[in-house]
């Protein structure tokens, strides 16, 4: 578990660096501002957790980095090993995907093609980037399935996705993602659809693989418990903006932003049995008609008058701890 703070790493050493990313979609109902100025990064072997609920823009950010959001208006910068991803041509991007940055998604059943054998899909992925004879591809596929803990990979390699259980499918996805030894793995809610015992296995697997291959992991999730387990740095998103960004211990023990604190306080694990939970009142905003000022202000229990009109920038409260809130630093204690 590297103890290097994100902001103290010289930026040239950071593998993936996203700055002021903004993504919006023009729809029949209006312009959906999915992401409004996000910045984050990971270095080699590091783990970043991006936390947010539905509508926070966390998934869209990841998809945009890999050029998977066609038809959107994108601004900002996303550099991988110094090269600007957002300006790449399609063929350049394709070379980066899989080999440089790999992504796994929430529902492996919909990410794996149901009509092709699992081994074939892995092999095909590899063959797009590397020229290998078929026999070698197959061997590599079997090797990878074994690496991710699938029993009897030699016989499993010829199965179809529906013959795999949920946990196995996710492992297969991870195998596919790691096939080319990517520098960065983006995992978008990788365990949400899985049972908690299987989740534990998958997280353990990801940790071990990270330790062995020094892969940087960006874990996108709404599950704060997961973030506490595996992330080093955490970015909290809400309504397309960053609310707070810091290392994991600071986030859980001395969070600053009222949204972060509200989230933590509303968890059942934090509530004493038999007593009421403390939810965050109100509802998330529409991404088409966003409130002025701080996007969280309608639900904030500590709202100030300036919050309604002035959008707080990300201010640095301490080295490696930024928060987009007008509240002064004395509000540093957890609920």
């Amino acid at each position, binding site marked *: 578990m590297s103890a290097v703070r994100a902001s103290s790493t010289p930026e040239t050493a950071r593998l993936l660096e996203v700055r002021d990313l903004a993504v919006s979609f023009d729809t029949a109902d209006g312009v959906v501002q999915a992401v409004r100025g996000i910045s984050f990064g990971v270095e080699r072997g590091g783990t970043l957790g991006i936390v947010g*609920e*539905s509508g926070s823009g966390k998934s869209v950010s990841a998809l945009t980095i890999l050029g998977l959001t066609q038809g959107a208006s994108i601004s900002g910068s996303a550099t991988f090993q110094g090269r600007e991803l957002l300006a790449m041509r399609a063929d350049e991007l394709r070379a980066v995907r899989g080999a440089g940055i790999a992504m796994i998604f929430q529902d492996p059943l919909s990410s794996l093609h149901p009509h092709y054998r699992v081994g074939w899909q892995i092999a095909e992925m590899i063959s797009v980037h590397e020229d290998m004879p078929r026999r070698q591809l197959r061997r590599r596929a079997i090797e990878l399935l074994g690496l991710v803990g699938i*029993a009897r990979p030699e016989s499993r390699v010829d199965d179809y996705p529906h013959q795999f*259980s*949920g*946990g*196995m499918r996710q492992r297969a996805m991870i195998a596919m993602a790691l096939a080319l030894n990517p520098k960065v793995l983006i995992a978008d809610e990788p365990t949400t659809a899985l*049972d*908690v*015992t*299987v*989740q*534990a*296995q998958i997280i*353990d697997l990801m940790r071990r693989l990270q330790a062995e291959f020094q892969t940087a992991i960006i874990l996108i999730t*709404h*599950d*704060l*418990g*997961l*973030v*506490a*387990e595996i992330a080093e740095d955490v970015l909290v998103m809400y309504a397309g903006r960053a609310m707070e960004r810091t290392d*994991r*211990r600071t986030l*859980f*023990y001395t969070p600053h932003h009222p949204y972060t604190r*509200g*989230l*933590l306080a*509303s*968890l*059942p*694990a*934090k*509530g*004493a*049995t*038999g007593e*009421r*939970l*403390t*939810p*965050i*009142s109100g*509802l*998330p905003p529409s991404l088409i008609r966003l409130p002025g000022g701080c996007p969280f202000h309608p639900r904030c229990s500590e709202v100030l008058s300036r919050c309604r009109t002035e959008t707080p920038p990300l201010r640095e409260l301490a080295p490696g701890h930024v928060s987009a809130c007008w509240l002064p630093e004395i509000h540093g204690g957890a609920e």
Partner: protein
Amino acid sequence: MNAAGTGRDGVLLRAEGVVKHFAVGRRWFLPHSGAVVQAVDGVSLEVRRGETLGLVGETGCGKSTLGRCLTRLYDLTAGRVEFDGHDISALSRRQMRPYRRRLQLIFQDPYGSLNPRRRIGSIIGDPFAIHGVAEGRERTRQVQELMELVGLNAEHYNRFPSEFSGGQRQRIGIARALALRPELVICDEPVSALDVSIQAQIVNLLADLQSELGLTYVFIAHDLSVVRHVSDRIAVMYLGKIVEIADARTLFERPRHPYTAALLSALPVPDPDVADARQRILLSGDVPSPVDPPSGCRFHPRCPKAREECSLREPALEARGGDSPRHQTACHFPIAEGDELALAAHAEPPGAGA
């Protein structure tokens, strides 16, 4: 959500040896030619008036199926279900009708459980229409009252479900279930599909309604932390059977069954120090298919403590090792004090359960 100590004891719902099998892939004229999914395979439990019984388990454990069996949405393959002393196991749909006023179900999916083509006033008013309880203006009035009770704006009576968010739709579903003031409500994963910040709102709502209306809950969920918060007693299910049942506090502090322990240790805890410090029990493999469950104790292929006997004889659900009768475990070699598994399972976030 603690058990109402108002002297209204007595069992409201009793299940004895409930079995539910689904025939899969059979031809219509050959009823026994195909595989059988043994979704629920002999479950017995009691729900006392005023309490909240939590039902947890993972995929394939049968908890949702059990919930539907208890409300007779499914016919039972075998076994008995008794509601307030009346045997409802084999009643016809017409005979079940009057019981449906007293025994209700809240569904998991706020997007699927409401008819998208009907206005919510009509949806919430369904129970009144079906049971001929109130008409016209009186019905409208009662529906609006219900809407306010669950925290919805009564003016939205004529809107369609698509105009509401997930949390609000869940409130609509709750309003519908409570329309005729039932006594027992089975909540099937009521908050799983909601955002974290909304989950707490709904959990609080359910708690408030319970004390205000004197409800009894069976709370089905896979999220242990939520279940722990709301339940008085918790039953853990695995592959169609109850493997452990105990008071909530006891289950978390002194689990007896290895599966319970594994479940607890796998639970992500939003506390970095605790997360770092604890040891995980990692189960091998995945949950076997309910079509072909393992012999003897169903958990034995994945159990870190399994011995030969476990594959031969199925353990009965009973109090073991000096536990009180309220704490029953189905295991030949339950976890004892000081057991390795016991230490790994025990992951108390600071301040909780105090």
